[in-house]
């Protein structure tokens, strides 16, 4: 039994954490809140130099050809640090291109991702309560029309992968953001650090990326990677809460002595470790191409959203009045929680998907 990351992945995690602890503090996130640039370009340069955008890119395309394990640990550390760089967006785009991109598509984009010359992003939302399974954006021939919002890191990106209704169903399409018929503008969201955009496509050129089936497989993989991101963010919120509980005094005791605070912290840990177990299961399924991929991904998504919401909300609560101020870092986690929901759809949608996977498995077993 070896249900754990490889030693290589763990070493990468350590390296990433050390780098981000030093370089991507919450001060960096706070600076980004007020910045003109859609991301921290200096930090991004360093991230690229560390080879993180090359990790999942095949060696033939100029990447490192690393496995899903490495992508998962990097996602977790990026989530922990709140680093304002388009890493998750590029990673999710990479994952789709690696999975089903044509050689031409891979050649066109992946090398650029690896060396940091290009940035990718993905968008499923349409701002009006669509679900990942549906899309109002529509493809006719090799042209696409529709609106995608919110798209994380849109303003930073060179290419967007978007879900749209094609002839065979909803699937991903590749949009070169420099093409005619493509309009993008910044979109304000609850998250003030990670920038989002509104992508308006008017008969814009597009190319299919895989099929409706592979779109769903990509959703699974994206859910697993995003679960690790969420775990990282939730862990950081929990750490902040624990730190404050150990330090703040009320009524002559550290507030961490009160079971009202203490049990909240324990519940954070419980939710986090449940989510971690499922996320790790997802990492295994992704790497192994296991039949459990769909259920593992959905469980990881649901459990990690649950952990993140709880840690973000109760971290602020444990901080009391000071946690509600603009100057407190609590708001970063409280807001990012909503960003991670928006990135891939709600707990409800993924719970339903989980049960569908369980039903299918039971039907096969019967």
């Amino acid at each position, binding site marked *: 039994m070896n249900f754990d990351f490889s030693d290589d992945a763990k070493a990468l995690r350590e390296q990433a954490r050390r780098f981000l602890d030093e370089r991507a503090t919450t001060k960096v996130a706070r600076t980004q809140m007020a910045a003109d640039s859609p991301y921290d370009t200096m930090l991004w340069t360093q991230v690229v130099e560390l080879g993180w955008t090359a990790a999942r890119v095949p060696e033939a395309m100029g990447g490192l050809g690393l496995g899903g394990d490495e992508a998962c640990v990097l996602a977790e550390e990026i989530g922990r640090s709140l680093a304002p760089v388009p890493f998750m967006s590029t990673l999710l785009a990479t994952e789709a291109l690696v999975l089903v991109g044509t050689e031409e598509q891979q050649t066109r984009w992946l090398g650029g991702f690896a060396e940091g010359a290009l940035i990718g992003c993905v968008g499923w939302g349409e701002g009006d309560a669509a679900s990942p399974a549906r899309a109002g954006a529509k493809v006719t021939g090799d042209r696409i029309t529709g609106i995608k919002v919110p798209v994380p890191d849109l303003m930073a990106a060179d290419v967007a992968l978007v879900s749209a209704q094609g002839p065979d169903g909803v699937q991903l399409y590749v949009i070169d953001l420099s093409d005619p018929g493509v309009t993008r503008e910044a979109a304000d969201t609850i998250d003030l650090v990670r920038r989002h955009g509104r992508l308006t496509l008017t008969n814009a050129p597009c190319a299919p990326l895989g099929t409706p089936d592979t779109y769903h497989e990509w959703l699974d993989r994206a859910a697993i990677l995003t679960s690790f991101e969420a775990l990282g963010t939730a862990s950081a919120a929990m750490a902040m809460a624990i730190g404050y509980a150990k330090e703040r005094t009320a009524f002559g005791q550290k507030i961490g002595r009160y079971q009202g605070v203490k049990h909240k912290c324990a519940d954070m840990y419980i939710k986090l470790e449940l989510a971690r177990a499922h996320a790790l299961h997802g990492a295994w399924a992704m790497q192994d191409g296991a039949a459990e991929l769909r259920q593992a991904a959905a469980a990881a998504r649901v459990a990690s959203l649950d952990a993140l919401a709880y840690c973000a909300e109760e971290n602020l609560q444990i901080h009391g009045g000071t946690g509600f101020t*603009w100057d407190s870092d609590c708001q970063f986690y409280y807001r990012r929680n*909503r*960003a991670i929901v928006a990135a891939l759809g709600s707990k409800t949608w993924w719970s339903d998907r989980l049960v569908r996977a369980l039903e299918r498995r039971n039907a096969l077993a019967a």
Partner: protein
Amino acid sequence: MDFNDTPQEAEYRTKVRAWIDANIGEFRDVPDTMDRADFVARSKRWQTKKYEAGFTGITWPKAFGGQGLGPMNQIVFNQEESRFHAPTELFSIGLGMCIPTVFSHGSQALIDRYVAKALSGEEVWCQLFSEPVAGSDLAGIRTKAVKDGDDWVIDGQKVWTTNAHLSDFGIIVCRTDPSKPKHKGLTMFIVDMHAPGVEARPLKQMSGGSDFNEVFFTGVRVADSHRVGAEGDGWKVALTTLMNERLAVGGKPRHAPGYATLLDMAKRVQRDDGAAIEAADVRQRIAATYIADEGIKLTQMRALSALSKGEMPGPESSIAKVVVAKTMQDMAAFALDLSESGGFVTGAETDPDVARLQGSYLWSAGLRIAGGTDEILRNIIAERVLGLPGDLRPDKDLPFNAAA
């Protein structure tokens, strides 16, 4: 059982309604644009009108300029007044909390000087209790007042002060004897907010607005004649004030979205398998929200019924804030989830219901803390209502300056 006025209440309501209808005029709606000075002037005009007509200090003793009527009269007046958007919030803390403290514990000279001018709207008041290190544990106050001749000199910092920048005076609790146990070394004063050394700075909240202030005191002099209550009795005096606060903080913020918002939204939202309103989880959430919000309204009606009969309301009103705040947060999160990616985008094009829910999600995080955290309120219910023993408080009897 009925939800009707008693004959006395009905009579008072008729009188109030007639007066308000005749006088509401410019106060009927909020003007489109209004700067700070306009807001203050407008608030004062309305307060003065009410004062002159005998609708201020309704429940206060006549000796202090009040009307000597019962709490139901005040409630009837508030209900009638709330049919319009009259500007009342500038005076709510002064008249609801500060001035009752002044006339309960202050000298006759202070009463003569301050009560009428507050009641008439001439002077605005704020309350200076909370500090960065003294929130839930309010008695941990560190702002100090040191005797210097006939004056006291105040140094320290207060926080979460509503309207500090608009106020003329404030009541402030200071530590006057750090060698006494924490509850014993406090004293209450009236401080002139325009005095040298007083600086109010807006405190920006996570939700973006600045509804509160930080107030810094640097060598601020207050005459001993402006002490409220005896030296060392500050905690006892503050409890009077806080008792009034507990009554004030409770219900759902006006205009906050409730179950009806969720119901409307659920009719519009389509899930993969049909309208959200048909889904059992959505229906259960609407039901739970109704039960919480309407349950609190009904609980408040129980309290009003007691007041109407001249009885003390039961302890059940103590559940209000803890229920309302958490329900707001949970319902808002659910509704934003329901709206999928749409629940995340802000700005002018956002559906107005969704925008209100986004506001609710942020604001509820503060509401779960303001006026007593969920945890403190549960302690209060358990200890004062259910009679369970208090938490151990190792610092309770130690000299303040000896405690960790």
